[in-house]
């Protein structure tokens, strides 16, 4: 891969990632590292521990991720903590938002904490490289991934731990493409064990297999893997904090009521249309297209977190390399979709990312506040969302109608 893109280009890609890792700070990375730091102390079930010890903890948030995330990040944190020492441990524990960013070692700490992201990021680049046989397309896919400002900022500015699930989903698709069905279903299960969203992909893997045995594998293995990964942690605290947390269930909103107790979940209805048109052979498209359109539907109808956009990124790279006609639509879709969370009333999405430079920026208005001075922000968001839905519809049709043999 490095030979294909050129060593200088590869080094430049790494350098840009290191810069963004060091300078931009989203508080989630510190909160998560505080929570996973308890693994070093021998705490294996973090969910009840954080709730029971909340009054004595510096950071009070619950751990909203699944056990595999806890063990993976906790193991890395143990290594980092050993290397960086007690000053780092104190920084991770610190709840004071000023002294955190004024710590003279903050760039050093952020770089260390984001190194696993860099490793996974390069792995995804390698998978994209391996996806294509044609040398030119291999190069194009790798460059598109490595020099894509969207993914660089999505991964490193927001310390995006969704990248682990993205890698595993993409690996599962690659294995599926290479007819390694058992491994593919296992990787899909691991992906679900990091993040719940790949569960929505199970029906499409099922649909895309030809033999009954393979279909059964995709019905059993991913869900079984997920259940095994959470089995030891099933408790009220786990269900409330992670399994049914707002973050996990937000994907099933919005909905509209059709009676006092019953409502229709818009995104799920449309995904069901996609599945049943596939099942009834009306729609014959590749697995990759099924998954891409599913995610486009989710982003169109969900109040999504900016980190989620990474779920789509590898699929989009493949599509823009394979189908040049899709490039403009995908670019416009990406710009519009990224703009939505940037207009949320959440400082850490925008201005606060630069707090390592100066806390003076705390006085500046967020894009949400700024726009709201001139125009009703809710109306603007509704307009953007409506445009996005229209564009998503057109983009999905274009993705579906592209020639599979290209």
């Amino acid at each position, binding site marked *: 891969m490095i030979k294909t893109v050129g060593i200088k280009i590869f080094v430049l890609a790494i350098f840009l990632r290191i810069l963004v890792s060091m300078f931009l700070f989203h508080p989630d990375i510190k909160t998560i590292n505080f929570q996973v730091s308890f693994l070093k102390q021998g705490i294996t079930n973090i969910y009840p521990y954080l709730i029971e010890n909340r009054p004595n903890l510096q950071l009070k948030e619950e751990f909203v991720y699944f056990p595999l995330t806890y063990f993976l990040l906790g193991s890395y944190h143990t290594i980092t903590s050993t290397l960086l020492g007690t000053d780092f441990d104190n920084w991770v524990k610190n709840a004071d938002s000023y002294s955190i960013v004024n710590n003279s070692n903050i*760039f050093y700490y952020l770089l260390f904490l984001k190194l696993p992201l860099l490793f996974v990021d390069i792995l995804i680049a390698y998978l994209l490289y391996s996806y294509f046989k044609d040398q030119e397309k291999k190069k194009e896919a790798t460059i598109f991934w490595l020099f894509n400002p969207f993914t660089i900022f999505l991964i490193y500015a927001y310390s995006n731990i969704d990248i682990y699930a993205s890698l595993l989903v993409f690996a599962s698709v690659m294995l599926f493409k290479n007819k390694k069905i058992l491994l593919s279903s296992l990787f899909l299960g691991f992906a679900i064990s990091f993040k719940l969203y790949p569960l929505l992909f199970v029906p499409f893997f099922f649909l895309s297999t030809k033999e009954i045995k393979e279909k059964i594998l995709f019905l059993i293995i991913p869900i079984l893997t997920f259940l095994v990964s959470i089995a030891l942690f099933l408790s009220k605290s786990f269900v409330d904090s992670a399994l049914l947390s707002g973050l996990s269930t937000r994907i099933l909103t919005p909905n509209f009521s059709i009676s006092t107790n019953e409502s229709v979940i818009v995104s799920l209805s449309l995904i069901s249309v996609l599945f049943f048109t596939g099942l009834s052979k009306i729609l014959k498209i590749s697995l990759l297209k099924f998954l891409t359109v599913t995610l486009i539907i989710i982003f169109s109808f969900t109040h999504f977190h900016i980190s989620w956009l990474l779920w789509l990124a590898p699929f989009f790279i493949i599509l823009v390399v394979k189908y040049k006609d899709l490039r403009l639509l995908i670019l416009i879709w990406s710009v519009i979709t990224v703009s939505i969370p940037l207009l949320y009333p959440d400082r850490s999405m925008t201005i606060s990312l630069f707090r390592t430079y100066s806390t003076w*920026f705390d*006085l500046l208005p967020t894009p949400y506040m700024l726009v709201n001075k001139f125009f009703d922000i809710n109306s603007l968001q509704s307009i953007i969302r409506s445009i996005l839905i229209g564009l998503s519809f057109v983009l999905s049709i274009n993705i579906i109608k592209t020639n599979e043999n290209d």
Partner: protein
Amino acid sequence: MTKFTTYIVLFILFVFPAIMTSFVKLIPNGPQPGYDGANRVSIYGDKIYEQKFVSDVDNLTAIGASIKNPNLKNKSKVNFQIKDENENILREVVLNGFNIDDGSYIRINFEPIQNSKDRSFKFVISSINANVDEVLELFIIEPNSVITKYIYNNEEKEGGTPIVLYSKSKGVLNNIYTVYSNLLSKLLPLYF
């Protein structure tokens, strides 16, 4: 694409913060000191709050404090005055309780007071027209290098309400210099 992304990343990391800095018009003296929500004083009618403080900033141009307006009942005029040591009124601002949320951080802006650094001042907050059901409340903490004493109910005590003092920015270039020097000072430990 390689060049475009490189420029975009470098622009966002090194030029965009300078642009943001140019919009900074007030410089805080630091974070607001922490406070215990239980220790409060009420302001209404003749219950006036006076805070003695020493400014650690020059060109003092705003004071930030957390003010409670329980059930948002206070909709009366809130008078804010800054006095010097000789009780001369230097600045006066009239707020409306209608614009004060319950427990929100309020920044009161006024014309800069020149040569304010290391001078002693007093600010007075009153809401004369408010009755006992329309109180505003201020949190009280121990004294620090800025807040020294407060007077409430004709009684002078140590400490006061946790405030942030703001100075007027010394200009765009000065701000940019300060922000980037701060950045460099954090980067240096990596190389030494």
